[in-house]
């Protein structure tokens, strides 16, 4: 009906113009030139072009069959889009598939570092995400790490039951656990080229992950206070690798031998309309793997974190964060005991670039009397939403090298609609 009305309107405009021109001419016997003010002619021409475009679009819309999935009770969902990719309509039945790749080059003055003075492909992460049932979301991340010689493995693969009860989500499967502020953040989404030293040494080189069940409950607070309680029970990936004296380069991470449990309370409050203050406390406990001369007892990890974010106009944002982690083992008061912290600031002025500063300080569970520290300057150039380059220059000290310098150059690129939970 709209198509017919539009065509009729075009005809009326054309006929009307002729009639008007006839009046202007005043004499039907004159030859067929028409004099119209130029501005008016340009405006009519632009309007006609717009109408022609609309007619074309309407024709296509009328001729395409409707391909939307039936709406559930309640709100209508958006109609299925026209199939634009090759493969036609089947494309809309696919989950979200994306690939994120990370490569790093490292220059280091520490000659003990096996990864120095080379560029390597660190990780390629294939993400497959979608809904398998109303309010049941599936996420799978397959990671391949050629630099570590590891075969492809499921970095995370879990189901999330959304809104089981008001504010209650449940997840089942393998995933990065809720410990600390950034443990569940994938490395390509971090604001630095490597995890802070305390998290690498006491929690895990790639974070702390486990297979199990976790519940996330949004506490019913008053006002705009956000408070979320996460509880999980997991089977771990086994004890971590340690490097020992004198070439101690990293800690073993959480070093849980088998089952472990986690708890985290995450709170956040909007200090002003444009700023937010977050505080969190984390706890993890489980049987510890052997560490040095000790056979391992029960390892306990405790974490406290604080984050402040202030948002400006456009894309500008200031982030300040600090996080501390403590590790104890019950078998021996001193064995496996270690602590550490980091302080981080990041300023993003435009969406194309950000500047960061990171200070690390961390002990080693396998050598409690030793520690390392580092100060890093981080520059990130964001070329697009899916591609960035980062330079991280570090000066630090560690056992065996009181003063080392390191430069990391990180490339991250992605293809596809990769999304993450609240970070």
């Amino acid at each position, binding site marked *: 009906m709209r198509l017919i009305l539009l065509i009729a309107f075009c005809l009326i405009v054309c006929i009307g113009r002729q009639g008007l021109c006839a009046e202007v001419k005043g004499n039907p016997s004159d030859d067929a030139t028409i004099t119209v003010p130029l501005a008016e002619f340009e405006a009519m021409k632009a309007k006609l072009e717009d109408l022609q475009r609309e007619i074309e679009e309407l024709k296509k819309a009328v001729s395409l069959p409707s391909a939307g999935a039936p709406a559930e009770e309640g709100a209508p*969902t958006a109609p299925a889009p026209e199939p634009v990719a090759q493969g036609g309509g089947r494309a809309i039945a696919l989950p979200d598939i994306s690939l994120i790749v990370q490569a790093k080059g490292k220059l280091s003055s520490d000659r003990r570092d096996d990864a120095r003075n080379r560029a390597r492909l660190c990780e390629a992460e294939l993400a497959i995400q979608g809904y398998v049932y109303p309010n049941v979301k599936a996420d799978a991340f397959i990671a391949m790490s050629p630099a570590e010689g590891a075969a492809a493995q499921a970095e995370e693969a879990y189901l999330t039951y959304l809104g089981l009860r008001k504010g*209650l989500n449940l997840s089942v499967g393998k995933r990065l656990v809720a410990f600390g502020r950034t443990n569940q953040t994938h490395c390509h989404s971090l604001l630095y080229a490597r995890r802070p030293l305390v998290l690498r040494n006491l929690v895990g080189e790639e974070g702390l992950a486990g297979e199990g069940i976790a519940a996330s409950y*949004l506490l019913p607070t008053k006002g705009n206070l956000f408070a979320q309680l996460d509880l999980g029970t997991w089977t771990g990936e086994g004890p971590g690798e340690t490097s020992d004296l004198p070439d101690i380069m990293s800690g073993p991470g959480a070093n849980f031998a088998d089952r472990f449990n986690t708890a985290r309370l995450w709170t*956040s409050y909007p200090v002003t309309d444009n700023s937010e203050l977050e505080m969190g406390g984390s706890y993890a406990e489980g049987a510890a793997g052997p560490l040095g001369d000790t056979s391992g007892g029960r390892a306990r990890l405790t974490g406290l974190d604080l984050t402040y*974010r202030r948002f400006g106009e*456009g894309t500008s944002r200031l982030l300040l964060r600090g996080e501390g982690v403590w590790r104890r083992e019950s078998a021996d008061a001193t064995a496996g005991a270690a602590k550490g912290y980091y302080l981080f600031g990041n300023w993003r002025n435009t969406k194309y670039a950000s500047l960061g500063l990171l200070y690390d300080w961390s002990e080693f569970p396998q050598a409690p009397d030793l520690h390392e520290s580092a100060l890093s300057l981080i520059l990130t150039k964001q070329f697009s*939403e899916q591609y960035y380059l980062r330079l991280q220059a570090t000066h630090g000290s560690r056992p065996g090298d009181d003063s080392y310098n390191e430069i990391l150059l990180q490339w991250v*690129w992605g*293809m596809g609609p990769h999304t993450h939970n609240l*970070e």
Partner: protein
Amino acid sequence: MKSRYFHVMLSLVALAPGSCVLASPGFAAISVVAATPDLADIAKQVGGDRVSVYSVAKPNQDLHMIEPRPSDVSRIARANLVVRVGMDLDLWLDALLNAAGNGRVNRGGRGYVDASIGIHRLEVPREQITGASGDIHVYGNPHYWLDPLNGEIISANILEGLKRVSPADANYFERNRNAFLAGLRSAMRRWQEKLSPYQGRKIVIYHDAWPYFVRRFNLKVLGCIEPKPGIPPTASHVASLIERIKAEKQPVVIADAAFYPDKAAKTIAARTGAEFVVIPSSVGGAKGADNFFSLFDHIVDGLVRGFSKR
């Protein structure tokens, strides 16, 4: 040891300003959380005093780069209605919806509104999209609220959502929407009258957010300062834009929102003599642009100012 740490955390939660760990039941207005200030304003106009409205995105924030805040999760957890832009512009809202665990406002729930339903979409991609295309939206250009007449469709979607959530107030919401539509049509006449002398005139914009607006008011976009959406301008692209502007017989206006980088726009204006005007692209994006109607008053007046200076 374990319990002591949790007592510390729970104490911190209780002492946090304005907080109480357990909420007391209330009988508040319908709580609406909108993705953008524009949707929030329309929801307020339709909902009237039966609703309290909050916008996740703030005025003058780039909607492609919103970092969802944990405190917004609490608002969505209590919300009766969520209104989103859709068309993949506000994917960041999904993280908040998932964390909130509020089934009534999840996708497909009674309180879930996608304001883009029924919008006649422009610039829907017809070929494969890759990173080489820039940050293209699969479902078309999502800045549809910048055609003021799309307010009819947006308000219709919000109205349906409010009626689902509060059927007893349906007549009230209908009356409010009718008043909104009457105001919109009256304002539309005013805007068309102001811009009618400039029909067919060309503008240069930073980001490709204005196709709905230019189509409605018979303007044209000569080019975007971003060579492709989301891709920063290069020197060669700016140079070619300058040449194209110089080749135009009629003066061109450079216009876009304040939160985009203005260095390239100012350079182009200086080299070509084109007028550079800053116009808001969302409610609250300029002083005085505090509702849907005054937003377009500012946009139209800004463009008229630019066109009429030569």
